[in-house]
Each structure stands twice: as C-alpha cells, then as structure tokens.
C-alpha cells in the first residue's frame, strides 16, 4: 500500500479507479482490458509528468517519504556483504549512524550512513536518523580505520540534522561534527558520498565532505530545513515552500552550483515506488565513481578534496 503525498492526489485517484475496476472485473465476463489499459497509461503519464516538474518543497516531501529506501534497504540491495561495526569506544553506540565493512560488486569498502528507520519501533531505535556525538565519533573511528587499511569510504547521507538535545550538547555535538568533517578531509583513500534522502546541515556535511558527492534525483541538501529557515526569515514555518525555493535545495540546483558532482536517477515516481530500481541506480553510480578514483595516490585524493571545497564559493 503506497502512502500518497498531497500533490500525488490526482495520481492516487486514478490508481484507485484502476484497482476498483480490476476487482469489479474479477469473475465478470465484461471485457474491460481496453479501459484498464487506457487508465493505466494515463496514470503512468501523469505520474511521470508530476515527477518531472516537482517543486523544491515537493522534492523535500519525497526525500522525507516514509517508504523511501534508507541505509539498511540500500545495504541489502546494493552490497553483497555487510559487516556492521559498532561503538565510539568512549560512550556508546549510536544507531542513528551505522557503519561497517561492505562489498560492492567485489569492491571492499567502509560504508557509513544515517538510518532513519521504517516503522515506529525502528524509527525510535535509530532516533529518526538524527546522529549524536557518539555516532559521529563512530564515523570518525571507522574513517580512520579505512584510511589505515586502504579501504575506500562510501557514505549514505540521510538526516534531517544532528540531534538537538541537552546530552548531545554536553557530549560535544559541535566538536564531534567538526572532527568528523575533518576526518573526511584527512582520508588517504577515495571517498564517495551520496545524499540519498535529506542532507540536513552540519549533521550531513560531517559525512559528506568527500571528493565525489552524489545526490539522488529527488534528494534535498540544505543549510537549514525549509521550515527552520522560514520561521527565522519569514517568521512563520508556513512559508517553508518559499524557503525551499529560495535556498536552492534540489539536486538539480546543487549540480548547477557545483556543490554536487552527479545526479543519480530515480525510478519514475521516486525511489519509494521501486526501491529495487533505485538501489540498482545508486549502486551503479557509486561503483563507477569508486573505479574512477581507484587510480589516485593518497596525496592526490586529499588535494582533489581540498581544492573542491576551497573552490566552492571563493
């Protein structure tokens, strides 16, 4: 059962009519195949045209869609092996940020990413993908491990932002994020980051300071949530659609600004309509990027990464 977004209503209505027609026709002699075919085509076209012209705010909703594939879905679909590693060796294990060894078509990597969860219990367990200091410190630990053992780093970024809480502040949320960004920049191995859903502020940058940054077609990446921006600058969160527009949060905008390097196509109707196809698309893109970076020496990789960020906005 698909959960429809507000702007998908016309598609939902068509799909519902198709479903009704189907069940009504069951065991009936009336031939409705022509009518069904006509409606299905209409529905498919409508879905395609809707998704071709999504506004930044609509994309934000797609990026946050509850059935959108998350870290663990991608792990299952893309990587033939995943060996999870846990803990920051200081405080605890943060399940909002997962990581471990993984194999992508035989390529050995260290995989790190945010996991939002896909039902109430898992969302709570993963704290809705909002990392705490120990999560970022685990990421740092794994990146250092990757660097020492010559394993490329792949990150899947999907967070509304780092967790805003008293204990997170006390344990140094800001320091953990800063150090994680620093750890990305210090890597002597290739790093490919993919924004797969929401790239929310510093909590995203901490895992995305790579020499190659990919973004799923309907993902968003921004300095603050549209709601947060709107409530500060417009003094009402209701202006979030305007804020999303003004801030330029879409993959298409960010590619134009040179902030990301590659847009990963999603199936028609978004990744949640066909997680398997979305995963295949993402896996291919990451694999290609890793292969391209494989020939670089450690100092060249660092230079690539440094120049990428120094050139941004200078």
């Amino acid at each position, binding site marked *: 059962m698909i959960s429809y977004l507000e702007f998908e209503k016309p598609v939902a209505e068509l799909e519902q009519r198709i479903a009704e027609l189907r069940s009504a026709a069951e065991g009936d002699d009336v031939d409705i195949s022509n009518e069904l075919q006509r409606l299905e085509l209409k529905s498919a076209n409508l879905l395609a045209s809707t998704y071709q012209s999504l506004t930044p705010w609509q994309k934000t909703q797609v990026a946050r869609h509850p059935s959108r594939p998350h870290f663990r879905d991608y792990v299952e679909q893309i990587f033939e092996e995943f060996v999870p590693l846990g803990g920051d060796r200081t405080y605890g294990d943060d399940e909002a940020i997962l990581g471990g060894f993984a194999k992508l078509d035989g390529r050995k990597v260290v995989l790190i990413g945010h996991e939002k969860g896909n039902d109430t219990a898992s969302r709570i367990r993963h704290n809705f993908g909002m990392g705490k200091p120990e999560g970022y410190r685990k990421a740092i630990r794994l990146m250092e491990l990757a660097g020492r053992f010559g394993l490329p780093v792949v990150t899947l970024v999907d967070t509304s932002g780092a967790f805003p809480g008293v204990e997170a502040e006390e344990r140094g*949320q800001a320091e953990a*994020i*800063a150090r994680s960004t620093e750890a990305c920049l210090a890597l002597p191995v290739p790093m490919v980051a993919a924004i797969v859903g929401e790239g929310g502020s510093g909590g995203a940058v901490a895992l995305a300071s790579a020499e190659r940054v990919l973004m799923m077609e309907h993902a968003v990446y921004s*300095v603050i949530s549209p709601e947060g921006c709107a409530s*500060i600058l417009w003094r009402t969160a209701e*202006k979030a659609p305007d804020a999303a527009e003004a*801030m330029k949060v879409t993959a298409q905008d960010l590619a134009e*600004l040179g902030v990301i390097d590659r847009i990963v196509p999603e199936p028609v109707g978004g990744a949640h309509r066909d997680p398997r196809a979305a995963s295949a698309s993402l896996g291919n893109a990451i694999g290609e990027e890793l292969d391209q970076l494989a020939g670089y020496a450690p100092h060249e990789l660092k230079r690539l990464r440094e120049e990428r960020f120094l050139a941004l906005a200078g």
Partner: protein
Amino acid sequence: MNWFTRVRNSITSLSKRSTEKDLWVKCPSCQQMVFAQEYEDNSYVCPRCGHHGRIGADERLRQLLDEGFDVLPIPDVKEDPLKFRDTSKYTDRLKKARAKSPHKDAFLVGSGAIEGKPAVVGVQDFGFMGGSMGMAVGTAFCQGAERALTRHCPYIVVTAAGGARMQEGILSLMQMPKATVMTRRLKEAKLPYIVVLTDPTTGGVTASYAMLGDVHIAEPGALIGFAGQRVIQDTIREQLPDGFQRAEYLHKHGMVDMVVHRHDLKDTLATLLDYLAPAKAA
C-alpha cells in the same frame, strides 16, 4: 580608576557625547546604568556585574594585537549567488548591514604581534548580520589562515555567530569543510590554531572551525552551542539546565580549556604562544 578621573574623562568626552542618554549605557545583564566612558575603559565589561558585552572586530583587534598591526582587506566574493529573497532582498539586507558597519562583512583579519610574538588574529563580528557565516566569512577565515602559513606564525580566531548565512543557502554550509581544509593545513605546518569563543557562538560555526582549535578559550558567560535553545526545548520538551550552553558549562563538560576574563585575554594568549609558537616566525 577613582571617581575624579572618571569625572574628568567624562568631561573630555562630552563633546562626542552630546546627549544625556549617550553618557550612560544600560548593562544587558544586571540592568544597571553604567557610565559609558567607564564601560569603554573597562573593555566593554560591565564594572558592576562583570558581564562581557559584545564588541566589534576593530575594537577586538585593538585589544589583542600590539600597536601597528595590519588589517587585511575583506575579500571580494560573489554577491548574492542565489538571488535570495525572503520578506526583503538579501542585497538590501547586506546594504543595511554595511551602512551600520565600518566593514563590508562579518570577518576581519589583523596581522601583527601579541606582546611581541608574531600572530594573525581573525575576528568574527556579531554586529554584522549576527556574524553569520557566508562566503565572505569563510573566505576571510581562509585568508587569515593563509597569512599565518605565509608568516609561519600562530592563527588566533575570535568566534561570534548566530550560525550560517541562510541567504547563501548551501554555499554557506560549504564554508564548514572549506574552513576545515585550512585548519588542517595549519596543523600539518605545526602552527598553533587557537580559538577564542565569544558570545554567542552557535550552529555551523561551532560545528566547524570553532571546535577545532589546539586550545579553546571562552569569554565568561558566552553562549556556545550547536543547536539553538528553542529547538532543543521543542525537541525534548523539558526545562533546560541552569547555565546551559554557557562558557562555564562548556568548561565543566570538557569542551573548552579555560574561561578567561577579557582583561586577561591578551596575556593568556601570549602565555600560550610562548609554548606553542614555532621557534622561527617570519
């Protein structure tokens, strides 16, 4: 300072301060009226309660660097790259901020010496659009680091910011890794990078160059944190602890090395440089 010198000072400054109101300032902390001249002479620290007032970048450079330092020109960056507009245009907001400020953005770099020891000091000015970090701030930060690398001397950065310059969208966020490239280069060159956290330092600034220092100094009472207090309250729906996100609280939780009164700041920096500065500086 005794009462007579205070009175005398006030007389000499009467010409600048034409109105009765300008003679006095109200301390935002203890709410007492303080003689403006006395406040100024006290480095903008309230003589009654010790509250550290916010100061501009020029004043800060004067307080920290020996006489005769150079001020680097604020770098030119692409203006309003997103053509951003909320209830008013970003370019109009910039114009307004510039009309009130001696500088065209919120980060100023001074190159000189601290008690005879070569140093580059970068200062973030909360008075300019809340000190917010955009391309100009990030680029000026990097130029300060560049100057320290060229002079082979320490880099000291005084932070103050409400967060990122939202009007520059993702490009403001990208200043976090960009500044971090430079803090890493200082590290590789074995040059000390010292952060002085002042009121307020929050958001993306805290989560990047403000927390990457070899030594962290905070001014008393300064608000320092990652997330805003209202955001935290909305998330956890609990009362925030006393003194939460204040300098003393961060010191207690191990995030800063020391909380230092503004009067002692220059001396403290000189002491640290004595241990950390490279033997040969240009």
